[in-house]
């Protein structure tokens, strides 16, 4: 496997660390290869931690990679080319049902960070009956969020509507714009295009605070057991980053803009408000309850889901330790 630190990114990391020269720096540095599975604001916190040298401050030299999709990221975890992955708890659950031994140590998005957008003319939840709703992939985060939201609103996702997989986040947006689907969840800043096109959010899932495991910090158990200090430092960095972001709106917005290659300030600001206020929390705690929807929705299609003991699949001690030390301010 090729887990070595990539040249240009690692160099950036080093120079930034030198610039921010924190007095609390531990002896530098433990190398970690981490990856996020989507260009999505869920991963904002690790991006910020990386860009601002917060990992470095905590004694980690992180090589932050982008991998496309949870399956691929799991493969990279299991193949040993990355040590820490950020992707959906549902995917981790499926992986464990399939025989993997992954542990979730933190949850960066404990609620569904979506709004359900609908075409003009759909005014109430009842109007959704018989309509087509797009999700990225069956069994993926958007699928679970959509189904959870519908259930919560009193609809049976299997009977009352038609759920259609369209392949990706971008396809979902395109299909909404194009009118081939009647509704679909989306999140800032990408939903800007939808707003421009006159679509409206019918349900704000985040504000409903339905427990979800949308973006976990995940690793193999064997790695966790052998590198508890490193994992703790990683979680600490995330907690610290979240705290700094709260106080540094311009900095945070700049980071998001960089990763999205986007310079629309309105969209970025909207995203900031949404994620800081509605989605993320000071301490990214992971809980058994956050997996309830996933188990319910995936269970019927995959008999192995039942065999997974969620409580053994999560490890709450790291976030708890950070909380004990009040790193999140």
């Amino acid at each position: 496997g090729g887990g070595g630190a990539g040249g240009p990114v690692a160099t950036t990391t080093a120079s930034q660390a030198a610039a921010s020269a924190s007095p609390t720096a531990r002896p530098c540095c433990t190398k970690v290869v981490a990856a996020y599975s989507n260009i999505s604001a869920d991963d904002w916190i690790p991006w910020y931690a990386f860009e601002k040298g917060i990992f470095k401050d905590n004694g980690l030299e992180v090589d932050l990679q982008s991998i496309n999709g949870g399956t691929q990221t799991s493969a990279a975890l299991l193949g040993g080319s990355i040590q820490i992955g950020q992707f959906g708890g549902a995917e981790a659950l499926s992986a464990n049902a399939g025989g993997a031994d992954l542990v979730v140590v933190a949850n960066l998005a404990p609620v569904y960070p979506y709004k359900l957008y609908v075409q003009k003319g759909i005014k109430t939840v009842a109007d959704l009956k018989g309509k087509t709703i797009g999700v990225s992939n069956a069994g993926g985060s958007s699928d679970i969020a959509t189904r959870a939201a519908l259930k919560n609103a009193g609809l049976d996702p299997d009977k009352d509507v038609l759920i259609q997989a369209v392949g990706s986040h971008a396809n979902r947006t395109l299909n909404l714009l194009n009118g081939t689907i009647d509704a679909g969840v989306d999140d800032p800043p990408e939903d800007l295009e939808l707003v421009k096109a006159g679509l409206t959010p019918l349900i704000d899932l985040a504000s409903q605070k339905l427990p979800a495991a949308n973006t976990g910090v995940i690793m193999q158990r064997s790695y966790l057991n052998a590198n508890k200090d490193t994992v703790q430092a990683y979680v600490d960095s995330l907690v610290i980053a979240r705290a700094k972001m709260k106080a540094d709106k311009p900095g945070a917005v700049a980071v998001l803009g960089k990763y999205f290659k986007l310079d629309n300030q309105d969209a970025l600001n909207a995203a900031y408000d949404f994620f800081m206020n509605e989605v993320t929390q000071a301490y990214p705690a992971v809980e058994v309850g956050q997996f309830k929807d996933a188990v319910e929705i995936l269970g019927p299609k995959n008999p192995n889901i039942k065999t997974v003991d969620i409580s053994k699949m999560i490890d709450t001690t790291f976030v708890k330790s950070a909380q004990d030390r009040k790193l999140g301010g």
Partner: protein
Amino acid sequence: MSIQSWEPAAPTTTLDRPPARERRSVVKPGRFKQYEPVVIGTLSVVIALAAWQIVANARIYSILFVPGPWDVAQAFVKLFQTGDIWLDIGTSGAEIGIGYGMAVVAGLALGLLMGWYTRFQYALDPFVNFFYSTPRIVLIPLFILWFGIEMQPKIAVIFLGALFPIIINTMAGVRNTEAALLRVARSFGAPDALIFRRVVLPGSVPFILTGFRLGVGHALTGVVVGELIAAKHGVGQLIAIAGQTFQTPKMLAGVILIAGTGMLLTTIIQRVENRFQSWRPQIR
């Protein structure tokens, strides 16, 4: 007997090394020869499966990524225990049938025209090269835009995939038609259409059928890629869901269904080719 050991045109063989000067027996191509392809093919597949099972049992990799053939076989059987699979097969089959069928017709026509009329080739070459090198995956949003999310965009992906190898191979076949035969046909005043049908087309059969064969591969990968887009049913969708939910044996069962179809279609094409080539002195 392999192609290089004796003159291919004369496969009458002799029993191995009889005492010199004694009368050699005449043997028709042995019973075994006839079944050789099947026997050797089966043997090599069995060996490969055994090796796979051993690797899988060694559990160097998790079952998540390397399930054994036995796991896959079980998943395969389970697949066929639910009735849904027939809907999937039907859906994908219809998509492939339509998409590939259209690609065969269009590819053959365009390939023949481009091979025959050089100016036509000059005009279309840039587009063929361009679209053949364009990853179809990036065109999917456009297909959705134009065709919606029902069967049409998948058919479009399959069609585009199979089209170009057929065009390119057909064109190469036409360009390689033997000049002497063209001259004979022209000498007898054969109209273009007849030269086409009776000389160019039969002469290009090996090229064209190789193109069809390559097209099958594209069509089958096309159905999987296409059904990633948006699908309710279909083997591609089955593979996609199983893959995303880490049901690897099930996913591989789906892959085997697809690849098995590919092998079937390829065999049919090879049969057709053998038929068309029966004038060639037997090589095997």
